[in-house]
């Protein structure tokens, strides 16, 4: 949805170089922040559902301690964290007019994101083989829902980054559109901070 929003602009303000708005802020960027405010409630809800339910399992059920592989998840968390760095590089490259740099960093961000998602897929299959399915117990349902929603957000982010990358290749992402990259970047960083929270609360909290 984010890119559909971001893509709205010129339909109403063809003179987009100059922001013709009451606050001086572009509509798209404001919309993204408003949207992120709303996302706080979404992830907050999912996280609460997880915290509420993680302990509601029988003594012999598969629980967090049985499946979590902290070293592995730490690495993939680190990868996602670093993708935020490459993302800001992409933004700052295009802001300076360095289109090639922008492309490189966009691709790098997407790649790091993809590694993270791949790690998540691996993690899910590993957990599944250890006996934790989506339907196994409340912990399973809540865990997969929360991390799955996050994974879906990352995936959408990757698709948007790839789209930007292709656009850039085809010359449709000139410096004047730096804000598009910045807006997608906001989304990307948000997904990252959500993971910061998930990683701490879901994985690292003493069970």
């Amino acid at each position: 949805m984010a890119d559909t929003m971001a893509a709205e602009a010129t339909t109403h303000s063809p003179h987009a170089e100059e922001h013709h708005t009451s606050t001086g802020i572009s509509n798209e960027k404001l919309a993204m922040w408003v949207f992120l405010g709303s996302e706080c409630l979404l992830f907050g809800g999912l996280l609460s559902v997880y915290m509420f339910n993680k302990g509601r399992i029988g003594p012999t059920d598969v629980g967090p301690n049985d499946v979590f592989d902290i070293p592995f998840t730490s690495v993939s968390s680190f990868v996602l964290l670093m993708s935020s760095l490459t993302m800001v590089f992409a933004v700052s490259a295009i802001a300076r007019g360095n289109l090639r740099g922008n492309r490189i960093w966009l691709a790098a961000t997407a790649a790091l994101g993809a590694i993270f998602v791949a790690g998540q897929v691996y993690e899910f299959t590993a957990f599944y083989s250890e006996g934790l399915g989506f339907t196994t117990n409340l912990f399973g349902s809540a865990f997969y829902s929360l991390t799955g929603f996050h994974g879906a957000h990352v995936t959408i982010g990757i698709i948007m980054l790839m789209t930007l990358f292709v656009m850039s290749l085809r010359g449709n992402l000139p410096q004047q559109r730096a804000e598009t990259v910045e807006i997608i970047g906001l989304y990307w960083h948000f997904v990252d901070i959500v993971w910061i929270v998930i990683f701490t609360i879901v994985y690292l909290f003493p069970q």
Partner: protein
Amino acid sequence: MTVTDGAITAPEETLALPAGPVIANRPLGVFTRPQGNEGWKSWLFTVDHKRIGVMYGAAAMFFFLVGGAEALFIRLQLATPDGSVIGAGTYNGVFTMHGVTMIFLVAMPMAAAFANYLLPLQIGARDVAFPRLNAFSFWCFLAGGLLLTSSMLIGGWFQNVPDGGWFNYAPNSGVLFSPHKGIDFYAVGLQITGIASLVSSINLIVTVLNMRTKGMSLFRMPVLTWMLLITQFLLLFAIPVITVALFLLMFDRLWDANFFNVAAGADPLLWQHLFWIFGHPEVYILVLPAFGIVSEIIPTFSRKPLFGYHFMVASGIAIGFMGWGVWAHHMFTSGIGPLAVAAFSVSTMFIAVPTGVKILNWLGTMYGGRLRFTTPMLYAVGVVSMFTIGGLSGVTHSIAPSDTQQTDTYYIVAHFHYVIFGGIILGLFGGLHFWWPKIFGYMLDEGWGKAAFWVILIGFNFTFGPMHILGLQGMSRRIATYRADEGFAFWNMVATIGAFVIAIGVAMLLWNIYKSTRDWRRAGRPDVGPDPWDARALEWMTASPTPEHNFDSEIEVEGLDEFWHRKYGKDETGRVVRAAPTSEVAHDGSNTKVHLPSPSYWPIVLGGGILLVGYGLIYNLWLAAAGVVLLVASIYGWILEPPDDPEAAGHDEDGHDDGDGHGDADSNGDSAEAEEEAATVG
């Protein structure tokens, strides 16, 4: 502005992306934009906030008849003891659909109709911030609404209808206890209308913050704009909560998750918390727009500015805030701890304070005024009076110990119909009469309007007044029938008669619309002019019906009630006198040089994709996959679409004569077709 092929050394493709020069050409053959405003297409592909508003209104009115018909069946079944008009199973489906339809498909979209139509006008804007997104919100809402409503027909009459009540408590909503597909329809349908509300809330928030005309600072905005803004914020933060709840429900029902599986250790109260964290802000989402409408109508017909403008705004904000801290008053008996009960009981009570401020300020506005009881004014004063009754019974619910006697009885049903019908529906009907001339260019008949009001008001009180008594005498809600020896027969019969009186009133209202339209057409009378009521806010400053481009030129605002102050001034003695005739102040809509966004195919296609995904989730995942493909395709189509149709060369110069571009009474556009001109095509 439109740049045709070759005029710029444009790269292969062009995109309607933010920031940067517009490079318009035609990327692939399919990605053109539809043309102008001709016939039905002009409605399907429109991105004009006014048409979208009208469509919201028409859809809401349609669903109101559906929900009202369901209400009549409820009342028929309950008219006598041991009623047998519809069986228990059907009854459960009927009251569930009645509640869901009325809340999500009537009250919310009807408020959205006013928000879409009026919000940009009141802040002097050309359109909302994201016109295509706005169109998408509508189609998405309609998709959700149709999906929900279709549950009554698919697989047999009322066979697959949601039957868990509108708040659909777990675990009764699980597959185990409701094995047919009804509750899937509920979960998926509300999820879809939720997306619509969320998108439109983002859009409207950005619109208000960013699209205000020159000088329109926040505290010069009309109170309606303020209330709508607060409503959008409530939606922004409340929708995700129900989204989470509905996802859990969907996962449980469709893919065997355990969120509400008590045997696996789940606690059903989780659903209640999530639902009401959404649900209580939701009731203020419903009522604040109506409050805003009342705040526009009363000053106009009192010939006075709104009493205590800042307090009205502040109390609206206070209600918005406090609305987040009271949700558990719906759960006083569900087993939350005594401290929680105490806290939520007290927090709930104090919402009466800001609400009371509103009521009293309306009275203050009327005080000393020159009150003209036109139809809109009747409805507005009706709100002041009837909402107070509902509010007061609300305060008696907030007394937690006595709520244990009241909850889930008809006393509650009485409360919320007084606030909802007496507050929201009356308010919205008032708005309908008030802005009708602005939207369509002619007045509704006052005689019929007033008559309909009185019939509705009387019927309403006869329907819901007795429910207070029934509730206190112990009649539970959601029961398909009651025993003869329980003593509920008399007042139930009164309520049923009352409901049919309301139906007559509603029929009179519809007849009024039909008759006024017909008379106006036949007599060939001219449009009413910009300002039939001598009103105050900016929307009255442009021609009626509003031209497609809204205002001929940008308005510079210097104060609250700008339009009124342009019409009136004070002479040396301080008396209010006419400063300029309305015709001089208002725009006549003749400017044809305003740039307008082209219509677009993609919002409705995207809505269609979502509808497919919806049915797919319920019936067959392959269908959902097809829907996803359509969805992704239309998102890319959306992005790749040029901002204007390159074929429509000279788009700007050609101008936009509005003609009767805003449809006829029944808003389906078919008879309007003939009168519309193909304005955009060169």
